[in-house]
């Protein structure tokens, strides 16, 4: 059953937010958004978070000795395979 956007309650609109936010869908003209400041603000704030998420956590370098740890673990594994 498709909800009528015009008669949509806040609860009904917000149940669709998980899909609407970040989808790129233009909701500016959504009838509920036009009428409801609370839902408009909620949508805009969540959209801001999702937009910001794309720039989060720039790549970082692991510690230099990590390869040594991996190499040593590989040798250990290879050694145990050969001795089996």
């Amino acid at each position: 059953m498709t909800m009528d956007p015009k008669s949509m309650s806040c609860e009904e609109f917000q149940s669709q937010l998980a899909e609407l936010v970040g989808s790129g869908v233009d909701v500016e003209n959504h009838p509920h958004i036009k009428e409801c400041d609370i839902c408009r603000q909620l949508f805009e704030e969540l959209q801001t978070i999702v937009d910001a998420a794309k720039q989060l956590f720039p790549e970082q370098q692991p510690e230099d000795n990590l390869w040594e740890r991996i190499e040593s673990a590989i040798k250990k594994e290879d050694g145990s395979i050969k001795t089996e």
Partner: protein
Amino acid sequence: MAQHHTIFTATDTPSQRKRMPRTRFQKQTSEAAAPEVTPPEKEGRGELQSSPREVAPPPVITPEADILARAQAGDHHAFAHLYSLHKRRIYSLCLRMVGNVAEAEDLTQEAFLQLHRKIATFRGDSAFSTWLHRLSINVVLMHLRKKGLPLMSLDEAIEPSYDDGPGRSFGAPDLSLTGSIDRLALERAVAALPAGYRLIFVLHDVEGFEHNEIAAMLDCSVGNSKSQLHKARLKLRDALRLSMRKGGRR
């Protein structure tokens, strides 16, 4: 640097392909190639045309397929090369998913050990980077499961008072998050999310996976993935508002 000698496929997932313009992504592809090559000069920049560096011979690029084939055949140096090309991406992925440096390093180690065990089974059905990315995600998920962390529906158990009903907790307009967000504050808020929420948020909104992909990874329904993501976003919004209020009081 619009062009670079990336020798690995530039996409991790179909979803990330859609997100190519993001800064982080551009960074990672150029970083991946960094050990091997010199970045090319920018095109169309008149002032660079007479640069002596432009007439230098092009750098030697070892094709990915060659490194991969050698690593698959047991060449230790080739495997080390693969590590150097992918370590940042895999470590950063682990760090995003668990939010803890020591754990992220352990998981990166485990991911490359798994890679070493399984590399011969890679058949090229997908890009190698995609395959390694998935393998690493599975390593993290397995680790979280071993720790006994339920990967879904953590919210009610951890914070029973949480209420995400409509129209809740709207602050004064001057606390609106619209417009800009302090990236560090958001990263802190993400790190402070319960594990299940962080996982969904990172996988969907940061890594770019679709709900059906997440549902398959986490063995849950698409609806559950959507609802958890929504709750995660609401939690982040609350955390950011709180952080802004605290900042405003200083």
